[in-house]
């Protein structure tokens, strides 16, 4: 525990288990689905990843905040997660790029942080019981009251969280590029945009509810469907948009974008027990046989059995649990991956997929 010994804070889970610790950052009461992330580094990127909207994130690595916060390593315009749980929030910040401490940053963003929690016990509890609804509170309610509040809170299933994180206006990410790429923003991470830019794209980011016709009016060389929070089944409008775009433009999807594509291609999605959140997930490329260590952050998954194998080819699988990690349309220039090739945080093993998107665009132009 850091020297900042402050007010008590509790997290109450819907199954009745309560952990107590100390708070840093903001005080108050917040609801969310509690998940754990096994990345050792990268808390700043995790905090600013819009996909965590609606979730309370527990870091399994116990010492968080060591290198502070800088202005460069952000993945979106603000912090989206509902609460942040660590074993120990470092009171000292040490890195040449550090500008502020984690606790200061959370306070400024009005986010609740919890420390002094047996995060391994919490993680093991989630592993066995699955990701669950929870409330974090600095208030004085009885444990039982808090548990009831957790039970009565909203679930992630069927909930459209995308609307809460996306832009409502079109914007140009960068001015120069050889390829006009439209990014459908479901909660896009900046590192995806940075990677698209790096492979020569002129990136235009559009709101998730823009119609297919309006998108096509922008004359894109390719369309990218971004990551984002929550249940893919809740963003039917995007699924419809994608259905209309199929065959009209090359498409590439990541994470939620991949799930949306999966549904648009006739597949189903389901909720994983506790999801994949971390930077060490082995993914096998079935074409090359090679294994990439990937960053992942998803609670839902496309059912590998639900895909029509006449149209869709499975390209990647997760070696830990054999779930679907990537697919490609057999006839159309469309592919997607469940993991995060853009990293941020996590390994850069799969950044080649951005080049593959460009190759696909080139080929479809011929």
């Amino acid at each position, binding site marked *: 525990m850091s020297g900042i010994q402050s007010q008590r804070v509790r997290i109450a889970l819907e199954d009745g288990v309560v952990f107590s610790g100390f708070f840093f950052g903001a005080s108050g009461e917040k609801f969310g689905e509690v998940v754990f992330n096994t*990345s050792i580094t990268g808390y700043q990127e995790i905090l600013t990843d819009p996909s965590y909207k609606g979730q309370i994130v527990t870091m399994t690595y116990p010492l968080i905040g060591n290198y502070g916060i800088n202005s460069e*390593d952000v993945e979106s315009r603000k912090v989206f997660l509902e609460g942040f749980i660590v074993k120990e929030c470092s009171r*000292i910040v040490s890195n*040449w790029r550090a500008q502020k401490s984690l606790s200061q940053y959370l306070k400024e963003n009005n986010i609740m942080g919890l420390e002094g929690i047996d995060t*391994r016990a919490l993680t093991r509890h989630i592993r066995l019981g699955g990701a669950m609804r929870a409330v974090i509170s600095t208030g004085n309610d009885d444990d039982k009251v808090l548990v009831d509040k957790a039970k009565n809170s909203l679930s992630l299933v069927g909930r459209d969280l995308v609307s809460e994180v996306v832009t409502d206006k079109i914007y140009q990410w960068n001015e120069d590029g050889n390829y006009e790429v439209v990014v459908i923003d479901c909660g896009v991470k900046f590192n995806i945009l940075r990677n698209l830019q790096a492979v020569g794209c002129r990136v235009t980011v559009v709101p998730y509810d823009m119609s297919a016709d309006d998108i096509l009016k922008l004359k894109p060389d390719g369309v990218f469907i971004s990551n984002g929070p929550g249940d893919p089944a809740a963003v039917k409008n995007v699924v419809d948009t994608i259905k209309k775009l199929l065959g009209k433009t090359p498409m590439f999807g990541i994470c939620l974008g991949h799930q949306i594509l999966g549904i648009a291609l006739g597949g189903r999605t389901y909720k994983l027990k506790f999801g994949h959140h971390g930077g060490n997930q082995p993914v096998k490329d079935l074409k090359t046989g*090679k294994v990439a260590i990937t960053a992942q952050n998803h609670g839902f998954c496309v059912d590998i059995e639900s895909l029509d194998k006449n149209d869709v080819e499975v390209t990647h699988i997760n070696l*830990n649990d054999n779930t679907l990690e990537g697919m490609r349309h057999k006839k159309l220039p469309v592919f997607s991956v469940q993991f995060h090739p853009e990293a941020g945080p996590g390994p850069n093993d799969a950044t080649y997929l951005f080049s593959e998107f460009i190759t696909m665009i080139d080929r479809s132009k011929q």
Partner: protein
Amino acid sequence: MPKRTDIKKILIIGSGPIIIGQACEFDYSGTQACKVLREEGFVVVLINSNPATIMTDPELADVTYIEPITVDVVAKIIEKERPDAVLPTLGGQTGLNTAMKLAEAGVLDKYNVKMIGADYNAIKRAEDRDVFKKIIIEIGLDLPRSGLAHSIEESKRVLVDIGLPVIIRPSFTLGGTGGGIANTEEEFNRIVGLGLKNSMISEVLIEESIAGWKEYELEVMRDKNDNVVIICSIENFDPMGIHTGDSITVAPAQTLTDKEYQKMRDASLAIIRAVGVETGGSNIQFAVNPVDGRMVVIEMNPRVSRSSALASKATGFPIAKFAAKLAVGYTLDEIQNDITKETPASFEPSIDYCVVKIPRFTFEKFPEAKDVLGISMKSVGETMAIGRTFKEALQKGLRGLEIGHTGLDNKQDYKTVSDDKIKQRLQEPNASRIFYIKYALQKGYSVETIGNLTGIDPWFIDNIAQIVEMEQEIVHGPWSIVHRNKEGIQNKLSTVLLKRAKQMGFSDWQIAELLGLEELEVRKYREKNGIFPTYKLVDTCAGEFEAYTPYYYSTYETEDEVQVSSKKKIIILGGGPNRIGQGIEFDYCCCHASFALRDLGYETIMVNSNPETVSTDYDTSDKLYFEPLTFEDVLNIINKEKPDGVIVQFGGQTPLNLARQLRDAGAPIIGTSVESSDKAENRDEFSKILKKLKISQPDNGSARSKEEAVKIASNIGYPVVVRPSYVLGGRAMRIVYDKEELESFIKEAQDVSPRQPVLIDQFLEDAIEVDVDAVSDGKDTVIGGIMEHIEEAGIHSGDSACVLPPHTLSDDIIDKIREYTLALAKELKTQGLINIQFAVKKNVVYALEVNPRASRTVPFVSKATGVSLAKVAAKVMVGKSLKELGVIKEKKVNHFAVKESVLPFSRFSGVDIKLGPEMKSTGEVMGIDRLFGNAFYKAQAGAGQNLPLEGKVFISVRNEDKRDIVFIAKKLYDMDFKIVATKGTAKVLRANNMDVEVVNKITDSDKNILESIRKEEIKLIINTPSGKKGQSDSKPIRSTAVLQGVPCITTIQGAQAAVNGIESIINGTLEVKAIQEYLEKSETRVQKPEKK
């Protein structure tokens, strides 16, 4: 794709004796490799000269050669065994260098042996600094500016480009021998000169000094499909400029953002691919400028290293085991993660704790050497600790170091340390700097100031500051109004505060010291208030998957994951960090105890804190607790597990020191009782026993004052042996020749063991020393082995060469020794192992010392005779009788096994190189042969002392030996050696028709002989000194000999042995033979009945 089918037989080259920079981590990696490759159906041929290793157990490889690891010998083994492949990457630098030399000598090509894991070119690319540098530049990575030099002249030209300060690193050496940082031109010339000499290829790298930068290491693995994973990142607490083996290191990296970490990861992937290490593990080091984040590549080890062992233990990912599998063709995704059993090995471990490794130094053994640290490694061991925070792991590590600290404690009162001293100790890296950081904080220095003085990252220093603040809270805080009454501590040490202190790693003892209480009082209070440690699993995946491997560490959290079984179980206490006098030999015994008890159906539980060892491999025992070996930590485990027995006699002095306290706390200690151990250790009690058994003992007495000591010594007559009681490895033990020396030494002895009497014994000059290891069940005793020392008497048994069976003692004497051994074992009610040291002089057998516990020689005896004494002893300790076990006879062998020790003097400049009763060696080798001479020759070669086959021999012997030397010298002379001798010796030799060159003695003004040794003209030294004058005369000869690597023999018996060996080799009869073959031919001897 599964394993290769083009390979059937694989040669593994071990790492030889334990030396600084190459310790038991390579036994751990080699053992894993042997196991895995045999499981996969390969025939494994192993060579290692170190008998104290688990890997050389006859059942671990198909064919095991305990032979010197030299090109000639390995070539012979290859010729005989015809392996298809050699695996060079698991035997440390020795294994790697030997394989490279075999390739260069054409041996591998001649017999069509492939190098697997890393091939010749890949190793060359990683190890040759010039080539490596080019590769790094080609792949666009940054390096410190540098240049290579092969001569002093060339080095000066390089220096012009770079400018001082610079770092000098010799190419192809072990652990950075001979390197250094030069701030002045004078230092530069000196270090370059030394480096050129130490380098196998006379090459040094001169480099821009990046001292003070942050230092990182990444452990990388690659398979043949080019899948690459990072197993672990390590951040050094100590900045660049201190050898990583001497640095406190922390896993995972603490102060890198993800962007920076990924940059380092990407660089590591690029490097391992460019260098072309085909499969297996490598270690890559980086430095980062704390000011602007500039990252430079430092070096790469294209093999499993010390850091790999640490990374394996820190993450639970068995690097060596998987490296062996990858080398024979598997890919990472085809290998299952043992711990989760459902996920593949193609992932990167995530950990949910903090690991701290702290080096263990032995500067007290070398008082003349300064404890200053640099880029040449000096530590002899290490301890690792796991905690949920850095603070907890650091404090656990400091108490696990076993250097008398209870944590980051107040052994020295900061008020007594001057500012000058603090500044000096902070600025100049040294073994106790961590404590000076604390003193500085206590004195009010800011984190920033300390950071500037030390170059240590402020994150670490601030964490230490938090420990200091907690200490303040315990002592002065409003919560801790503590006072004592009859019921113990009354109130008010807040339980909240106490729990927080425990979470920061404070030990009960440390808290007790702060509050002026006894350790047990704090313990009682803590337990009364329900504050108990919780045990968590090391599982490679931060809890994401279920783990099946019972590898635990303690912390103070809410959930405990230990599953206590209802099986019969035994806890074995290990030996903690390696140090001189307590190392791999004891770990070997602990492992054997575990294997033996597992065989008997017991659940075995290992407790140890040494990451290098086989005992801390998670599959050696049924359960592993990676914990400090202190009373508190061990008792916590005993209370948790409630074992049927606790074994303290295998781990060396560490667990023995805990025995009494543990027993008093109710722990079921099994084997020889604590009382018996005490009796053997107590001088008076021991004398009584010897008198009762009518066994002779050198005249002796114990003194509690200087005056008393002088009186006793003059009664006994000089020379005398003086030593403190209750110490290990002959600490502060010395042979004293006169009153003056006695008076000056007595203080040191008292300092080492205060409040205990100083023991004074008659020194039996010219006696032959004998060591005996035996095992007893309380009723019967069976001798394991009798070893005759080859060195002069008075040298610590751990430092002297010995031979099994004895080669000069008469049957009568040996029978007497047997009789005494049996009587002593019985008298001490020994249940388990017993080691006895005897001295034989003029046909009288004297008992010098008895230790009813595992000794350093147990593995040597076991390898020489094929009987695992430690296994037998462990079974006896749980109640089996020797009869039941079928161990009824002493083994008779038809060969000779010679043990020789390896000394670390070349690491400590300015140290007087002299062997004596205080142990100084770090490791040992064994030479085994049908002929004694050959065995001796092999032992010398294994220890790196190559006996010459031609050239000049220097001979200088005392008068008593002049008659015996003639025969020896004549043999050398007839084999065309040139003889150089001092005047007196030369006269005798000339009288016997030999041409002899005369040189002056050292005491004469002309230092001719030393010059000749330095110029490497002399190839062998035979020098038998006598008395104090003789000893001091020959001191410079010995020192120079050791520094130059010239074999120096100090006894007539040794000289005879050496000459026999040389003769055998010249006649071409040196053979290699597998240990399995020797043991087949041995038979058991009917033991003579105990005499009345």
